Every structure is written in C-alpha cells, then in structure tokens.
C-alpha cells in the first residue's frame, strides 16, 4: 500500500452501490403499490387471522429465545470476529515480503482459536439441546 488509502477511488467504487441501493429500496414498495392497484379487495375477519394449521390461534407467538441460542450466538460472534483478524493478514501473505514473525504469530493466534474451540467442545457448549 504505497499511497496509504485512496479515498477517491473508494468513494467512486461505491457510487454504483448507492444507485443500486436506491433502486433496491424502491422496488419492493413500488411492486406492492402495483399489487394494490391490481388486486381485488374483500374484507373477512378470518382472512386476517394468523395461520395456525386451520385452528383458532392461541397465545402469542413471540416467545422468548431458548437460552441455547444465545450460547450459539456468543460463540458465533467470537469466532466470526476471530476470522476478521485473518483477513488483513491473508491479503498480504503472498508476495508482500511478510515476515516470518507475522506468520508465526498468526499460527499462534489460530492455535489459540483452536484452543478455545476445543474448550467449547469439551464443555459441551456446542451441544444442541442438552
């Protein structure tokens, strides 16, 4: 990275993204307006009821998450973040004169990640529905 960050280039490369974003934001509402214009209307109380295999729905569907989900979510977030550290290193691994020390450090890092993984496995944190 000779010129450290080329802001101009980065912004240019995101202009198409912005254009598509606008279109993507507009498209579903437009479609739905079209649908509103084209589709028939008929009111019936049963139609607006939540579907529950045909029977009258009972209770609220918005139950609390099972705690296991949080455990998984935490594990996921941590591993995902650890992968994050691999990206910058990965791009310069080849052909950028990376020092051996950096490679060794990354191996140590991966080893520690692996260590955490073994720990989770052994603690049965990754077991669905204990």
């Amino acid at each position, binding site marked *: 990275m000779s010129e*450290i*960050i080329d*802001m101009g280039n980065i912004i240019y490369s995101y202009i198409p993204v912005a254009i598509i974003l606008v279109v993507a934001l507009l498209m579903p509402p437009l479609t739905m307006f079209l649908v509103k214009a084209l589709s028939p209307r008929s009111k019936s109380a049963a139609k607006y009821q939540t579907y529950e295999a045909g029977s009258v729905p009972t209770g609220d569907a918005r139950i609390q998450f099972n*705690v296991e989900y949080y455990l998984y979510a*935490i594990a996921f977030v*941590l591993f*995902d973040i650890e992968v*994050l550290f691999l990206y*910058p290193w990965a791009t310069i691994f080849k052909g950028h004169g990376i020092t051996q020390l950096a490679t060794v450090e990354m191996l140590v890092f991966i080893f520690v990640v692996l260590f955490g993984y073994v720990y989770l496995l052994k603690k049965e944190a990754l077991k669905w529905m204990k």
Partner: protein
Amino acid sequence: MIPVELYIGLAVIIFTIGLYGFMTQRSGIRMLMSVELMLNSANLNLVAFSSYNADLTGQVFALYSIALAACEAAIGFAILMAIFRMKDTINLDSFNVLRW
C-alpha cells in the same frame, strides 16, 4: 471530500445517543446495546481520523476495538443469562441487594 468535522459530529451524536440510552435504560440488553453504540461511534472516529491522517493505525485500532466489543458483548450476555436464570428478568433495578 467530506470534511472530517462531519464524521466527528456524527460520532458525537451516536455517542450521545448511546450515553443517553445507557443512562435511561434499565434493561440489561438495552444498556449493552447502548454501550456498543458508544464503542462504534469511537470506531467511526478512528476510521475517519485514520483516513484524514493518512495513517493506518486508526483502522487497525478499529478492528481491535470491534473484536473487544464482541468479547464484551459475550461476557455481558453470559452475565445477563445467569441473571435471567436466577431472577427471570433482566431489569437491573431488580438487583439491589448490595446497599449500605
């Protein structure tokens, strides 16, 4: 180019929202989210400054702080889960045994 003051302004606004949320909310999860907001406003600052100072340190720093924020969230969730298991609520006002 967008002037750096705008980034700072945005970061300050986000930070203030986070701080306000932290002060006013009593649900553990919401307080946690407020803190994350504050950390992210700092990240925004770091990245913006990094680009304006033409120095990569800020970006690397942001990377680290993202990771730390994740760890913090993990610990926070763990604590809140333990609290929930005991009290069936994450409203922190229900925790007031320790008073003098």
